[in-house]
């Protein structure tokens, strides 16, 4: 039973940065903007988050630094892709390249430094409950925040007027514009929310996951987050399932190897990506039923004034 508990704890930790980054991207894509720069925003968030925590000794300030850094990166994207109507795919890719460079630059002075990682919750009685105690009441703050975040986003998108307008921008920006909604302003805010989440997800890595900074430590998690949004077919509920599924596959394949299950490790490492491809195929086949991508996703909008 201890092993099961340990595995669940590892899965939650591995899933959390994916969930946070993917939630942000979900909101951006729901508003009609495809920002492929998640990896870039995450990695800058990692560097700035570590820098903030190292300089101030506070994990919370580190997380704030990560959020702000991610937002600033997303503003660069918004300026290019929304303000100047540059191709979103190209801008997003450029953002990733830029982010990796900036992260290396900022982080250069912090390589090899260590910090005390984010504390785990410890409630006297509750955390000691066997099996579920540590899983439910013994996580670090990021884990709880990520759950609150996706619940909040789900509520916002489907239960508020603002969420409805945001979705309208993503589905038909011309109509939304005609109804008098400021499409570009709404999209900019959505992109900034995505940047904040990506920055926070990046900061999670050096603040809680592996408490040190090394260039390149996001190692492609931003791309998995992007895949997750597609995997979830742009729905918050499925996004939660997807994020924990990805985390679970990642951790379980490591354990399977340790147990000596005779499946090639290369295949198991590829499983999450394989799952995404399969879901994509299923989605495209079932296009008639249920919504897939926001209709205006990735298309440039230039309001005629």
């Amino acid at each position, binding site marked *: 039973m*201890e092993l099961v508990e340990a*595995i669940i704890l590892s899965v939650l930790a591995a899933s959390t940065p994916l969930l946070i980054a993917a939630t942000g991207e979900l909101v951006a894509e729901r508003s009609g903007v495809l920002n492929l720069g998640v990896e870039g925003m995450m990695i800058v968030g990692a560097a700035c988050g570590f820098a903030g925590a190292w300089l101030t000794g506070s994990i919370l300030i580190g997380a704030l630094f990560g959020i702000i850094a991610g937002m600033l990166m997303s503003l660069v994207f918004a300026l290019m892709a929304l303000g100047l109507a540059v191709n979103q795919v190209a801008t997003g890719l450029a953002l990733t390249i830029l982010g990796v460079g900036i992260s290396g630059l900022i982080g250069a002075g912090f390589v090899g430094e260590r910090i005390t990682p984010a504390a785990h919750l410890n409630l006297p009685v509750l955390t000691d409950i066997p099996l579920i105690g540590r899983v439910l009441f013994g996580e670090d703050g990021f884990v709880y925040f990520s759950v609150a975040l996706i619940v909040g986003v789900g509520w916002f998108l489907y239960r508020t007027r603002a969420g409805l307008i945001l979705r309208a921008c993503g589905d038909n920006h011309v109509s939304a514009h005609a109804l008098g909604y400021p499409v570009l302003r709404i999209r900019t805010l959505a992109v900034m929310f995505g940047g904040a989440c990506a920055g926070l997800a990046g900061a999670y890595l050096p603040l809680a996951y592996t408490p040190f900074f090394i260039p390149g430590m996001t190692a492609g998690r931003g791309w998995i987050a992007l895949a997750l949004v597609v995997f979830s077919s742009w729905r918050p509920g499925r996004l939660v399932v997807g994020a924990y599924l990805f985390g679970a596959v990642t951790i379980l394949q490591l*354990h399977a190897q340790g147990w000596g299950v005779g499946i090639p490790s290369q295949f198991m490492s590829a499983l999450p990506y394989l799952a995404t491809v399969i879901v994509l195929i299923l989605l495209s086949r079932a296009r008639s039923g249920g919504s897939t991508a926001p209709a205006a996703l990735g298309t440039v909008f230039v309001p005629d004034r």
Partner: protein
Amino acid sequence: MRKSLLALAAGFLLAGSISAASAADRLKVGFIYLGPIGDLGWTYQHDLGRQALVKELGDKIETTYLENVPEGPDAERSIEQLVRAGNKLIFTTSFGYMDPTLKVAKKYPNVHFEHATGYKRNPNMSTYSAKWFQGRYIQGLIAAKMSKSGVLGYIGSFPIPEVVSGINATMLAAQTINPNIKVKIIWANTWFDPGKEADAAKALIDQGADVIMQHTDSPAAMQIASERGKLAFGQDSEMIKFGPKTQLTSILDTWGPYYIERVKAELAGTWKSEDSWGGLDSHMFAMAPYTNMPDDVKKMAEDAQAAITAGKLHPFKCPMIGQDGKPVECKGGDHLDDGQILGMNFYVKGIDDKLPGK
């Protein structure tokens, strides 16, 4: 993509420096690095080697390095940039630079090249690598002595001969201490992903391993072992900072002496194309201080190191039994020959795991 951009930027900088470097008739020595020099592992150690070189021969040479150069076509362009900038001796420090280096070497017969960890040579292109399996043998001895559970955890990067021979050397050594020792192997399928390396270490510890060994590049596994109160070995460089009570020792890639020797040969005009595969005896690598172990274990490790250095102890001595229970063909007299070690693609007896791809 970032790497190519940086390489490109570096290329422009270099192009700018061609005109600037005029009168100085110092020997120009170039380096191509795979990662950032701040990676605390592979590239970091190569750069320490370069710094040792500068310290030793400072006024006679001028060094340039390009970091973050991806393996593949970009490497060719970067190597050629170094040639055009006037470098007469160029070190390319990763396996994937092998073909690009050879291509550029054939194009510029008057420039000398040194390629790390490859096997293709040319009259103006040498190869160099280290017998890290010797260090892993010592680690296997220590691990078996220090393990209470009798289960060792091994994080592998890719199932290539260099990594497989490391696992086998560890196992053969551990079996001399405890014939029933178990090793659990997890392949990360990456050289560098701190999060995944940490997860692999967690999985191994959760499954009962109490000594963690790694053949991946970040200190994440060391940090997890430290958090959980287990023991571990560093990789490539000194990682004791990440586990002051955890690190038993670490294999340190010490390229400095080799770089100094080769540059001196170049300066003296005696540089020749050769294949250097050095072990502890040639100071191609070193062992970090033996820490966090009782004195008798430390003494055992030091004795083993001395015996290997003196050539009295060979990790792959015959007869050697393969995983299938059959003796391994012995081509080197009383031990496996270099070719067998460089191409090792089997597990030894006692490893109850399957080698991926076999």
